[in-house]
């Protein structure tokens, strides 16, 4: 409560307020534009086409799987980065964060060079087991996990660095195994951040476009997720594209609004 009072009484320079308003308008106007162009009357019909429902179903399944992959692999990576000192640590952290800044299309190209039919690993998967990741739903999950994992890793790593390690040390001296400490002390202590990381990773996976179309292709029901359906629809029916965009927007906004307090750690 004290903090809130302090905030409201701090005088703000007018220029700052003006620029803040400009920033908000810049972010808000495209959303308003979309809402104004939305064909509300046809919305139910547009969102129940086979393309729309298949894309929605596929998007939900693949984004949840991608978030799961990102969590199972990302939490251990975050733990190692936060708790261990090793040579090349800065390089490793750079590599982990790379998908955040890489254009997703480039991410898709790099995935092809690794996991495509003639890729570094992909050629053996294909020659030995006949597994083709491009043009498969598994390929979509990989593309999404690739771009989503950094969100989870940075969130969890930050949380691990901030918690008081004395609780873990106390547990150790009382005879708990490292595994027990991890599951009974460490993970419960960072649960809010972990959840935030998972949700952010999931939201990023849901919106993934470039890496998916490049690595996994575009086929309804198999690899055509919502963003790909928006892209395809835009060339035939603007209304359908806008309707599908609206679904993505609504889902993302809901997630981000409900997450904000937790993510910033400002909820008491």
């Amino acid at each position, binding site marked *: 409560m004290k903090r809130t009072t302090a905030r409201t009484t701090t005088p703000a320079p007018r220029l700052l307020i003006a620029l803040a308003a400009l920033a908000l308008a810049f972010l808000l106007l495209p959303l308003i534009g979309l809402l104004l162009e939305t064909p509300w009357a046809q919305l139910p019909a547009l969102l129940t086409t086979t393309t729309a429902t298949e894309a929605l179903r596929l998007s939900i399944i693949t984004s949840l799987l991608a978030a799961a992959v990102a969590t199972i692999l990302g939490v251990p990576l975050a733990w190692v980065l936060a708790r261990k000192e090793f040579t090349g640590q800065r390089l490793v952290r750079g590599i982990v964060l790379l998908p955040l800044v890489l254009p997703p299309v480039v991410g898709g190209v790099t995935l092809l060079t690794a996991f495509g039919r003639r890729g570094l690993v992909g050629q053996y998967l294909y020659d030995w087991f006949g597994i083709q990741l491009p043009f498969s739903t598994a390929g979509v999950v990989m593309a999404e996990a690739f771009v989503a994992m950094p969100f989870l890793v940075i969130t969890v790593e930050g949380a691990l660095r901030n918690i008081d390690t004395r609780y873990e040390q106390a547990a150790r001296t009382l005879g708990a195994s490292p595994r027990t400490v991890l599951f009974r002390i460490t993970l419960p202590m960072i649960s809010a951040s972990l959840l935030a990381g998972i949700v952010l990773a999931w939201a990023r996976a849901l919106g993934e*476009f470039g890496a998916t179309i490049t690595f996994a292709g*575009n086929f309804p029901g198999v690899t*055509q997720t919502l*963003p790909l359906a928006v892209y395809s629809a*835009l060339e035939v029916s603007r209304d359908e594209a806008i309707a599908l965009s609206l679904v993505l927007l609504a889902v993302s906004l809901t997630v981000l609004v409900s997450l904000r307090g937790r993510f910033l750690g400002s909820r008491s």
Partner: protein
Amino acid sequence: MRFPLLAALALSLALASCAPPTADNDDATTITVSAAASLTDAFTEIGEAFTEANPGIEVRFNFAGSSTLAEQINAGAPVDVFAAASSLSMDRARDALAEPTLFASNSLAIAAPAGNPAGIVSLADLQDPNVTFIVCAVQVPCGAATEALLERNGLEVTPSSLEPDVRAVLTKVIADEADAGIVYRTDTAAAGDQVEQIAIADEVNVINHYPIAATKAAPQAADAFVDFVLSESGQQILRTWEFASP
């Protein structure tokens, strides 16, 4: 969230309203030509020849699927010339365009990666469920032509992917991610040794006719470019890339 195309449209609208790159300039005029992905190589060469013949005019190209280009023009993108791979896509932006003229034609072919690992010899081989083959999305001209081709030959097949333009299909075939792709004959010519072309006989093939038109708002330089494409030298370049006469 990613909405690349919407973003691109918004951006081109913004650009169109504040700084039209088509504005006449004392030194040089730059014209923007939106052309179908299949024209990438031929038009790049035509552009160079055109600038050589008209030193005052620079040509900037915007290659993509014809339907994307039509959508961009409808959204107000600052384009001076539009060359599409089918009249159907051009008609989508018809209101913004002058009278179109046909300038080339093209037909389909099967492209396989170098060495043809799946041993494709005819369209019928695409029915083998073990063959991974990809096509253009039906929204773009090559996809519409592919659909007509498959229908005409009574083939019930399921492709692995519907790619956003013909060059995306070609790229994935070159990379050997797919056993075969249906592309234009000209694309297999452009790819050279990187792909193996499996020809489709004329009597069962589908022919696309390519129209070109300047936009209504375009400067005179745009008409000069259209004339150049239709001229002897323009047509000769199109022939070297294996486009047929319109």
